[in-house]
């Protein structure tokens, strides 16, 4: 594997080239840029797999490629700072590279069926957007420092904006794009401040190595330093929470989750790639990337865990009442990222990353499946107009079902293993920490809702009698749709094998491959391993009875809830003519249907608070600032016309003025110098 890493920049460069090609020549290409995108992402996928193999053979890569500026300014701890572009390929980023490039590759293929075959216009723009996004995401994944990560974090946000607003002639898409942009940007303000704070404190923004900010923070805490008037641990918590602002925005966690359901206005392929599998994962990935930093702060971790657990439940309840198939998936995405945050927050680094991987596969599958359903239904998204698609589109049905089982957490599908591991990690920590226990409880209850809304969606879409003409006579789907579905369907089924932790612990066999992978059994950068993080964590774990019993209790509880949720959905909706049961919710119905008035209060905040504030700022700008500027320019122009008048055009006047000016200078300097 010698030298494999020198090709690492190509992983991101391929899609960038595809972006340029699609943008400049897309109009004249046979598939409007799709071929370039597919070739580029295939190249990225191959190289990513190569990197994965290289890491598996025990090597890692941490290299600075370009230093764009360096400063001498002393930080609170470090002195001098360098801002660089560099690549860090360790087990975590190698894994994520494969996930991102695989999903991007499949989505590009799927787009042939979803966009090209449906006769969309503006395809070069679409493929250029996908290419730019894939480039930014891959570069974000292997960024070796926080600032570079921030830049590409912003760039993926931009691509998200561009692609949500792809159908910019509609009313809703541009509005949704703006909302996504603004809400995530709001979180990113905190992120930016966090980056600056970390850079100013530790004089470094590197993720890995002896001169990383994580190592510097650890030293500062050990030395009992005071940073900016706080003790080191508090300051780490503050900066960590600032960075978390960006994470919550990007990963659509409460209270910044409101943009994601609206983002479904974009093409479904975009939802699959960006708003399910990859970009939304960027937030969670960032927490995993700098997990060593968060591990230093129990407060920050507890907040992450609690927000995660709360979001998991909160979003799941909203998913229950949605009628649009993509809306259900959007809320389930929010909910599932809540699980990942919960996992990371309780120190379950492996569990969080495991669920991130599984979710990328099965949620991309579900979105692409939903895309296939939308093709079948002639662009109808309301589940109440579907039904009976099971027999007419078996490939779509069975792959969708695999994704649904994984999402609901039904054994032995992949989602079960990772979700169970998260809940187990939360439970054992929660036995000693009431806050974590509350987060665990919310996560556990959310399992029931997840099972319910998932199967409500499956039954309404595929079972029963067709409820519209479109459902009776579905539009056929081609190979470009089926191949990605089948690939992801298989992964949704088997990806759990990567880390069968409960089985391993009960049977005592060593089959926790992902844990070994992330623990650096193969290759790893020092300090960025699961066990290194474990040493930093301040959590104590407990068990109910014995470890095995705890595992069985946790797994049994979540399975039971998942099955009851699915079973309730089966009872209510797996009938030939299903009807809505929302009125049974009683007074809660309105609140949930209105998404707990989250949008309303945010709009109220914008209108009632931000708008008057910006009006006042505007008035200040218009009167005081502009007034003084205008005053100065008026005075200048007046002075100018006065100076101009000195130039009379009469040469005797000039001579007189010259002599007068000279004498004035002479008198002044003569008196000043004492000549007289």
């Amino acid at each position, binding site marked *: 594997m010698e030298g494999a890493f020198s090709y690492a920049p190509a992983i991101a460069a391929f899609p960038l080239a595809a972006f340029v090609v699609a943008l400049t020549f897309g109009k004249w290409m046979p598939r409007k840029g799709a071929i370039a995108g597919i070739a580029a992402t295939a190249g990225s996928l191959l190289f990513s797999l190569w990197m994965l193999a290289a890491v598996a053979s025990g090597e890692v890569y941490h290299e600075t490629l370009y230093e764009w500026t360096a400063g001498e300014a002393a930080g609170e701890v470090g002195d001098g700072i360098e801002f660089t572009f560099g690549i860090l390929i360790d087990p975590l980023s190698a894994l994520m590279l494969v996930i991102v490039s695989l999903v991007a590759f499949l989505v590009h293929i799927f787009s042939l069926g979803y966009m090209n075959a449906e006769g969309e216009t503006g395809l070069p723009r679409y493929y250029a957007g996908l290419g730019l996004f894939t480039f930014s995401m891959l570069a974000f994944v292997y960024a070796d420092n926080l600032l570079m990560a921030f830049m590409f974090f912003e760039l993926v946000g931009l691509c998200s904006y561009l692609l949500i607003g792809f159908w910019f002639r509609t009313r809703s898409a541009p509005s949704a794009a703006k909302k996504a942009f603004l809400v995530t940007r709001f979180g990113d303000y905190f992120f930016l401040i966090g980056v600056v704070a970390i850079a100013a404190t530790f004089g470094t923004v590197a993720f890995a190595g002896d001169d990383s900010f994580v190592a510097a923070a650890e030293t500062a805490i050990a030395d009992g330093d005071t940073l900016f008037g706080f003790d080191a641990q508090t300051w780490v918590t503050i900066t960590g929470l600032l960075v978390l602002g960006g994470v919550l925005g990007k990963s659509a966690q409460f209270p910044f989750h409101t943009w994601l359901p609206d983002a479904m206005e974009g093409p479904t392929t975009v939802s699959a790639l960006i708003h399910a599998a990859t970009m939304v994962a960027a937030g969670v990935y960032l927490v995993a990337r700098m997990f060593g930093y968060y591990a230093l702060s129990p407060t920050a971790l507890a907040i992450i865990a609690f927000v995660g657990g709360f979001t998991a439940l909160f979003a799941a309840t909203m998913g229950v009442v949605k009628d649009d198939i993509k809306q259900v998936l959007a809320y389930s995405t929010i909910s599932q990222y809540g699980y990942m945050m919960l996992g990371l927050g309780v120190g379950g680094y492996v569990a969080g990353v495991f669920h991130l991987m599984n979710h990328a596969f099965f949620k991309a599958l579900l979105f692409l499946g939903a895309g296939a359903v939308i093709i079948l239904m002639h662009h109808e998204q309301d589940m109440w107009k579907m039904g009976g698609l099971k027999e007419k589109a078996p490939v779509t049905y069975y792959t969708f079902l695999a994704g649904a089982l994984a999402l609901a957490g039904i054994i032995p599908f992949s989602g079960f293993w990772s979700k169970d591991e998260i809940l187990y990690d939360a439970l054992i920590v929660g036995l000693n920490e009431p806050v974590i226990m509350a987060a665990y409880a919310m996560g556990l209850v959310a399992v029931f809702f997840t099972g319910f809304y998932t199967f409500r969606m499956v039954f309404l879409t595929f079972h029963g009698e067709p409820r519209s003409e479109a459902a009776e006579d579905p539009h056929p789907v081609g190979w470009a749709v089926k191949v990605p579905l089948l690939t992801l369907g298989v992964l949704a089924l088997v990806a759990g094998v990567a880390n069968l932790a409960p089985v391993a612990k009960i049977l005592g066999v060593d089959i926790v491959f992902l844990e070994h992978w992330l623990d650096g059994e193969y290759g790893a950068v020092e300090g960025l391993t699961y066990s290194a993080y474990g040493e930093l964590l301040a959590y104590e774990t407990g068990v109910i009875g014995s470890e095995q019993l705890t595992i069985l209790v946790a797994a049994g509880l979540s399975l039971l809830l998942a099955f009851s949720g699915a079973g309730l959905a089966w009872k209510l909706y797996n009938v030939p003519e299903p009807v809505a049961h929302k009125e049974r919710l009683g007074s809660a119905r309105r609140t949930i249907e209105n998404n707990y008035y989250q949008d309303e209060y945010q709009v109220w905040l914008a209108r009632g608070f931000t708008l008057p504030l910006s009006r006042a700022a505007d008035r200040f700008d218009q009167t005081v600032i502009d007034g003084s500027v205008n005053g100065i*320019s008026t005075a*200048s*122009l007046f*002075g*100018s*016309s006065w*100076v*101009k008048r*000195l*130039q009379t*055009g009469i*040469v005797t006047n*000039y*001579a007189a*003025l*010259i*002599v*007068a*000016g*000279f004498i004035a*200078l*002479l008198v*002044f*300097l*003569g008196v*000043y*110098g*004492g*000549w*007289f």
Partner: protein
Amino acid sequence: MAVFQLAEWTAMAPALILAGTALALFVFDSISPHSTNRSLLAGTAAGGALASLAVAVWFIVAGVGTPTVDGGLGEITVLSDQFVVDQMALYFMIIVAIVTALIVVASYDYLVGHAYQAEYYSLVVLAATGMSMMAAANSLVTIFIALELASLPSYALVAILKDNRGSVEAGLKYFLIGALSSAIFLYGISLVYGATGHLQLDNIAEVIAAGDADPYGGLLGLGILMLIGGFAFKTASVPFHFWAPDAYEGAPAPISGFLSSASKAAGFVILFRVFTEAFPLGDQMNALIGFDWTVAFIILAIVTMTVGNFAAATQNNVKRMLAYSSIGHAGYALIGVAGLSADGGELVMGAAMMHLLVYGFMNTGAFLFVALAEHWGVGRTFEDYNGLSRQAPIACAAMAVFMFSLAGIPPFGGFFSKFFLFMGALEASAANTAMLAVAAALVVNSALSLYYYSRLVKALWIEEPATTRDRLARPTGLYAAIVVAAVMTVLILPGFGPVVDAALDAAVAALG
């Protein structure tokens, strides 16, 4: 590079080549007074200027002026120290040669149909000879002679459009003010001679250092002040600036560019040389004349840049606006002397020298654009220039470059020289807090200057043409000169390293 094998007088080659070219043109003129062989005449003049440039560059690369301890050839003195060829002299000879070459090439088209072609070119080259000699002059006598050698042809050149009342009137005004200034300057020389008994610059410094001039402090001070008056005239600084707007407006536009770039630079080189060689700052000098003479330059710099920019702000005539802007830039360059101190000031003086080089390109280019507009006959005011970019995008793009560079906007050369001036002024403020006021004036005036420079760019690129125009001609020579000036204004940024080195070396050598 066996320069040292040549006779010492050959060190003046850049100036001598120009003198020879001028004389050759005169000979041609006397043989064939009515020749309109423009290619031959302009070609000869341009060839002379370029040869002068090449020799000056060769000398500076070969190490003339670089102190011998640094492996250079050291300063070369000519005519018993009456002239000295050092880095600063060569640097300014280069500026003069570049501007002369640009002007001559542009004049090829500008002078179509004019009488006195040969006279024009020989006068230009003769004036350039004077400026080149000013760069090397090392005694008050040679300084005065070189200055007059530069001035007298300039008066004639301003008035060369004999059928044009404005041109003739401008020439006369320029001449009258010039005569007054020369008188003051000459009087100043005699006072300095009276106080010190010497005309050669280093001898003056020795006498002052030895304390022999101590009884004549006031006399010497008055002499110095009168010398400043002479330099202020040449550099178009307040209060000796009154000739400039009228002369530049009336003169043929290439001559305006020539005077405002090369002549100004030459004025600054003798200013730098006289004040660093003859009157070096120090406690003794201060005690002698009662104050630190930088005070005079601080006042002049602030007043000059303020008057220039404020008067330029509301002009309607483009050429007149450029004339005032040129006064403003004289104020910027004066910072280079104002920021000197007893043991420092290399940075600020080097910055002023850089600014004069960049200014040689951008200001000449701007005046050449005006020459192009005069050639087209589109008119003189901002309104007349409206929408020219539709018909002449290349020239207008070049003009935009000149304007933004003059205003000091990155990434053009003018930004960097102004930036260095600002930094130098701030550095100098450690020794002299009054420099803070100069730095502040620089910023305020730059901001104001952006107003009127961008007004012209707006007229060219954004405004609708007021009248419909015929197709505009594309005169080769003018276009070539403008494009070269624009390209240099842009490229001088990546090439700023060598320019900085050359200017700083020259400043260090001059102050050393």
